[in-house]
């Protein structure tokens, strides 16, 4: 998040092309607010988020000392915030017809609230739990058991396991290579005291943001939050500083290939292209992402010659996909899916990318896919959830709701071609091939 120095009053930004208005404010506590009202909707959806996720593995204490956090600390904290003194916030909210959930990502932890009525009261309750936790020994022990079960459940998810394995050869030191939930060993090192210390840093109001979409009056939300007496945060007088000493590393993957065995029916190819970290300028980053989106679609999308050829050869199927991830201190593109011949598919993809880098792309295809992407960007705003997540992500990088749309409109073919030459190159690629452990009859 940007330096939250001063509070700012509620202001509205009209995004005419989206038919949306976004209200923004920063409270005296430092907490950020972004709201997109939807009149006539039957519920309100909110994300309460902190910009603290699994890759935050170091706290800079007030004296300047650094405290290293075990893998899985952010996720463990998320689990503990839902339960307090034997009460569970989900249950209390359910009594009011509200549903809640939580998720820990690489760079954020988010708490989700969805309710048909009584939004302000429900929000108040959620904030109580998130901001005033208790880390009782027995709660912590119990949540550790549940997280171990969760790790076990995910260990049967072949997509997730192969993705994590791949990140481990793409990155050398960056903590994005560690499992979000941690390991049995790292969880053993997470104590109530450590959780409390981490909480005072990670959930400092200046790091919190509230992103709301639905039937809600922005002014009323500001009033309600301003009236809350937020707890003093355990001796923290200044905004916590982030420790990211392990995040800088070179752009070539640490290894270019790995093979693994998975309990799946067909071989799987997963390729990652390591990218330089995102730009700190929101507009610039929006342009870079727009160029990447178009590039992936032009190179690998359903209407591309490459997709047509590989699909017709039976090398790829519907599971084939390409996505770009860019967040705070890392960025990469992942491409892959089920394939009968992972090596032939990888070689075909790399060859095609080399051809694009040398010969460029077709302007006609570019214009057509630009129209498509503009359309699908607009369509995404029909989803209340997707709109709220866009508010969150744009806030984290200091941008606006409309940035993606504007970047797409301004995008030129040359930007996409430059991106192909810079990003999707052989030296920056790491490949994981997953072979079926055993084939079984279904």
């Amino acid at each position, binding site marked *: 998040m940007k330096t939250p120095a001063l509070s700012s009053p509620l202001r509205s930004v009209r995004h005419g*092309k989206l*038919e949306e208005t976004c209200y923004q404010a920063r409270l005296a506590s430092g907490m950020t607010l972004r709201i997109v009202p*939807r009149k*006539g909707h*039957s*519920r309100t959806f909110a994300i309460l988020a902190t910009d603290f996720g699994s890759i935050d593995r170091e706290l800079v204490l007030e004296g300047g000392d650094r405290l290293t956090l075990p893998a899985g600390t952010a996720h463990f904290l998320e689990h503990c915030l839902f*339960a307090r003194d034997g009460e*569970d916030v*989900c*249950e209390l909210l*359910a*009594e*009011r*017809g*509200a*549903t*809640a959930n939580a998720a820990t990502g690489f760079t954020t932890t988010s708490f989700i609230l*969805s309710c*048909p009525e009584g939004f302000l009261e429900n929000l108040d309750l959620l904030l109580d739990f998130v901001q005033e936790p208790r880390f009782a020994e027995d709660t912590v022990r119990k949540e550790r058991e*549940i*997280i171990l*079960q969760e790790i*076990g*459940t995910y*260990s*049967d998810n072949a997509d997730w396991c192969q993705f994590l394995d791949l990140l481990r050869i793409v990155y050398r030191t960056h903590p994005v290579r560690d499992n979000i939930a941690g390991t049995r060993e790292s969880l053993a090192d997470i104590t109530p005291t450590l959780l409390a210390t981490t909480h005072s840093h990670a959930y400092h109001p200046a790091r919190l943001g509230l992103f709301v979409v*639905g039937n809600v009056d922005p002014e009323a939300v500001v009033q309600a939050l301003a009236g809350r007496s937020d707890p003093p945060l355990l001796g923290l007088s200044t905004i916590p500083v982030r420790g990211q000493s392990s995040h800088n590393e070179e752009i070539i993957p640490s290894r270019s290939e790995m093979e693994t065995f998975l*309990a*799946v*029916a*067909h071989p799987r190819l997963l390729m990652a292209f390591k990218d330089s970290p995102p730009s700190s300028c929101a507009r610039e980053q929006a342009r870079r992402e727009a160029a990447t989106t178009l590039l992936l679609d032009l190179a690998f*999308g*359903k*209407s*591309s*010659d490459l*997709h*047509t050829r590989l699909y*017709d050869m*039976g090398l790829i*199927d*519907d*599971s084939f996909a390409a996505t770009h991830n860019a967040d705070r201190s890392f960025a990469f593109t992942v491409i892959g899916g*089920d394939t009968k011949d992972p090596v032939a598919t990888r070689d075909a993809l790399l060859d095609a990318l080399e051809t694009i880098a040398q010969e460029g792309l077709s302007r006609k295809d570019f*214009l*057509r*896919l630009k*129209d*498509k992407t*503009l*359309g*699908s960007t*607009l*369509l995404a*705003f*029909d*989803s*209340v959830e997707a709109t709220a997540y866009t508010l969150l992500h744009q806030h984290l990088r200091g941008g606006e709701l409309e940035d993606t749309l504007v970047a797409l409109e301004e995008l030129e073919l040359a930007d996409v071609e430059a991106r192909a030459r810079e990003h999707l190159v052989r030296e920056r690629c790491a490949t994981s091939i997953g072979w079926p452990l055993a084939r079984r*009859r*279904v």
Partner: protein
Amino acid sequence: MVKPTRRFKTTSLRLLVRRDLDEGTARAAILPFLSRRGSNRLPSQQALSRGLEELGGASIGVDVAKIGETQLLVYRLDVLADRFLAARNGGSRLERSLDLFLGVIFDPASPDGSCYPSDTFRLERRNLRRRVESLFDDKTSLATHRLLQVMCKDEPYARLELGTLEEIDALDNEETFAFRRAIVERAPIDVLVVGDVDPERLFAQIRDGSPLGKRDQATDSLRPVERRGGRGGKVVIEPVPSNQPRIVLGYRSTLPFGDPLLPALRVASSLLGGGAHSLLFREVRERLCLAYSISTGLESVKGLLLVRAAVDCHGVPGALGAVKEQVDRLKEGRFEETSLDKARRILVSRLGAARDSSSRMLDIATDAAVTGGSFSVEARIAELEAVSREDVISAARSLDLDTVLVLRDDRRARPATRQTLPEALAANLLPEEKRR
């Protein structure tokens, strides 16, 4: 059903084909996937994709589903409302997209009007096979599928909506093409629309652009669904490589289809395992710490309630015992009024949220079209709100345990208790059978 509204940026349309689950299941299942390969006007997947991209990213999606013993072929069209971004080549984006959509369903690419292009057919037959094989990848879905195969062995419901591998391998191009014609002429077909549309113009375009306006014979009537009682908890062990066993308990409800207690059964399912407020979540996850997730799923047409969880090896007997105990609590009415209230409120709240999404509105309309339930969210909410404590107990008492499936890795099986796993299961589950 057409719901004209300007609340959404998307106009969403679904065309549903309904048919009985039978030996023709694979032959029907391949049709939507062949549709995606283009129409006679845009005779390839690439040409079709380009056509859609020109229309502001309109998308055509297909799906094959099963509701009760009905196989459902689903064709979806989503298009940006005409009031956004002027279309590059003029004209109405909706009308042009609908034209493409009707083309791929009713005029699929064919070299001579009697079959699909042979390469395309072979490839999609192979891809359908791979889709079925990939069921193996998701252990919870696999466990559910295996349970249904055992539990509903001689009933149509045991069929996978995509067909069996044998049926898929036996598919013939000409036969499939002819079969598609028969479906277009006779199968019940519904069109559901939500968005910024003029219903009259839409109807006219569908009438003129498809054979639906010229159907002269009555549509096929579908077979009534088969309902049976439970068989007391037969335990099946399914050896599959995995790190964490999956358990699925299959219960049958003896309530007949269309019974007025059906909304109460929904509330019972929510109370038992419908989220963080539920009895199973509180007991199995929060108190016993045996599972990260445990939940129920209700198939209301067939009258099946499934309880699913991923549990550690040593936790399997404990989790099975806990499920049985919580179901008993439900049947005996040993639950608090507040728990019941939460279960009902959550269902009402989720249902109400459907009004904020065109795709969720279409999900409800799809369910209504297939099950004969109400298209109205308000009516469905009213049904749930009218459910009393006694209704929930009666609905819960209609549940009989039929079959239990434990999917686990033989190589990792380690007896954490002195009992073998089947013995432990028997100790927890068979008393109920003896009681009956």
